[in-house]
């Protein structure tokens, strides 16, 4: 794990392209089982492969911070749980992300939060997988921003499913290999249910 995800990365830099933040519901991110790196360079970005067939180096999520706690003695870090209509994101911020950690430390639960961060895939000793989001920034937002995000995440999910159905994108081919038993169409239902929870 390196500090390359620190927010200072966004400086102007010749040829450097910032990875976009994907809009993903918790229920989809939770299903990620494959992480890969493009290129051999130490700075090459790592991606998790979303089950709807898109690589993802960064996520943007909005939900309710329901719980947070401090861990560690020497290396302090914060963990938190952010709930969206489909499930829960696990977020963390450590001393490599001091700004994010201070932001997270300050927020009183429960609160709507907007999080930009990098997803990472872990496997526990008993073989279970865990996707956790290393926070780059976290801010308290209002309900409207949360609702806008649900629309945005639903739209992005449906867009990915359409690309998936077309079946030609390189990452679409990857999901057949890495998620053979997942039916992408379950995420359409998920998006519908998330949208249905938005009260206009």
């Amino acid at each position, binding site marked *: 794990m390196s500090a390359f995800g620190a*927010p*200072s990365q*966004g*400086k*102007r830099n010749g040829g450097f*392209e*910032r*990875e*976009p*933040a*994907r*809009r993903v519901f918790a229920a989809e991110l939770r299903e990620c089982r494959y992480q890969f790196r493009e290129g051999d360079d130490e700075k090459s970005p790592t991606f998790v492969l979303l089950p709807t067939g898109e690589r993802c180096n*960064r996520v*943007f999520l*909005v939900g309710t911070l329901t719980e947070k706690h401090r861990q560690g003695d020497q290396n302090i870090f914060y963990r938190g749980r952010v709930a969206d209509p489909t499930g829960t994101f696990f977020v963390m911020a450590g001393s490599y992300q001091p700004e994010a950690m201070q932001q997270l430390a300050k927020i009183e639960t429960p609160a709507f*939060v*907007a*999080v*930009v961060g990098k997803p990472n895939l872990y496997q526990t000793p008993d073989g279970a997988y865990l996707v956790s989001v290393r926070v*780059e*920034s*976290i*801010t*308290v*937002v209002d309900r*409207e*921003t949360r*609702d*806008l*995000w649900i*629309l*945005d995440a*639903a*739209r*992005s999910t*449906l867009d990915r499913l359409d690309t998936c159905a077309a079946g030609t994108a390189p990452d679409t081919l990857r999901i057949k290999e890495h998620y053979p038993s997942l039916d992408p*169409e379950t995420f*359409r*239902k998920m*998006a*519908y249910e998330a*949208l*249905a929870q*938005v009260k*206009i």
Partner: protein
Amino acid sequence: MDFSQTAERISSKIEQKGQTVDPKKIEVKLRRLVEEFGVQPAEAERSVTNELAKEFNLTGIGMTGGGAGGGTGSKGDRSIADIAPGEWVTIEGKVVAILSPGSPAIAQSGIIADATGAIRFVAWAKANAPKMNEGAWYRIESAVVDEFKGISNLKIHSGTAIKPVDEDRPLIPSTAKISELGPGIGSVRAKVVQEWETTHERMLQSGILGDESGTVKFVIWKEAGKEKLAVGGVFTIFYAQVDEFNGRLSLNLSAATIIQDDGDIIVTGGDSEMRGIIVQIAPGSGLIKRCPVEGCNRALSRQNYCPVHEIQLKYVYDLRIKGWLDDGKKTYNMLLQREVVESLAGMTLDAAKELAENNPLGMDEVFLRMRDAILGRYVLCRGREIDNRLLVRSCERLKMETGEHAALLNRAGGVP
């Protein structure tokens, strides 16, 4: 083919120049070319005419390609709009501008126009061509079109003939939309949207011109008789030089004919519109200090250090946000200037100054509050994209749209 008629036409041309030639001899030459060598009649006429012109050392009657059949010499002419680099052409046009030559090798340069368009011309000193006068019509025969920095040029060389045309024909150039401009010469009707501080002592004025279709940078260099354009004024600009640099066009108005116009133009186009979230706010955002030296305006470091003018204690405060806008597919570097920051973050420059002065964290406190107010928010930004950076003119928070929600529900529920 009626050789005698063609021969007659050629001989009369020669006679106009004060030489005599037997039409019968011409007819023999033509007949030989066409019947023995299978030359196209038009090409035969051209060839014989040029041969005779050379024989009598005449200029101004040589024909370029295509001049078939008809009676008058203008049949071989080309429209300026149609000529392309690499061609030898004959044109008739009006000299609409004389430019100061950039090199001693150039005797004269300027812009010549006909009803279809305009092109820059260059007469080499070696060509010994007669000087042309601005506002007069000329027939330029056998000039070469070449390309320099992506712009077509008409080269007047020693083989080119220039003949004054005595009548003053009406010439009303058509103006183009800014979005349709390409390198070369262009005419537009546009409004001065913005004036920039000049960056060069020889520069009279620079800024942005806009019309309904877009905007473009302009520059006027200092020269006798040149005046600045009023900001907000609408002008019809004939024969501006359109240069291209790094893929962006700019108009050089130094040689252009500029007429102040009534009315107004609603400048709308040229702007990019982007929706997304602000995912990062870079250091150097919030309340900043700027170098007070005239024309500098650079941001100072925390130690009030300007990279050019060193320590500056009489700095000027400003607000700005440098950050990244992310639409989920791509990220855009963006720059928000004071007015935009004030409305988006809900903090005026004065309020920010007061906050910085009365808070232990100083300017950092402004940064943190602005970050908390805008980071992770959905916004709609309008502005100009320059060098992969979006210069934001307006930025507003997005609102929920019920129609959007319904459409997405249908889309998600549409397939079982």
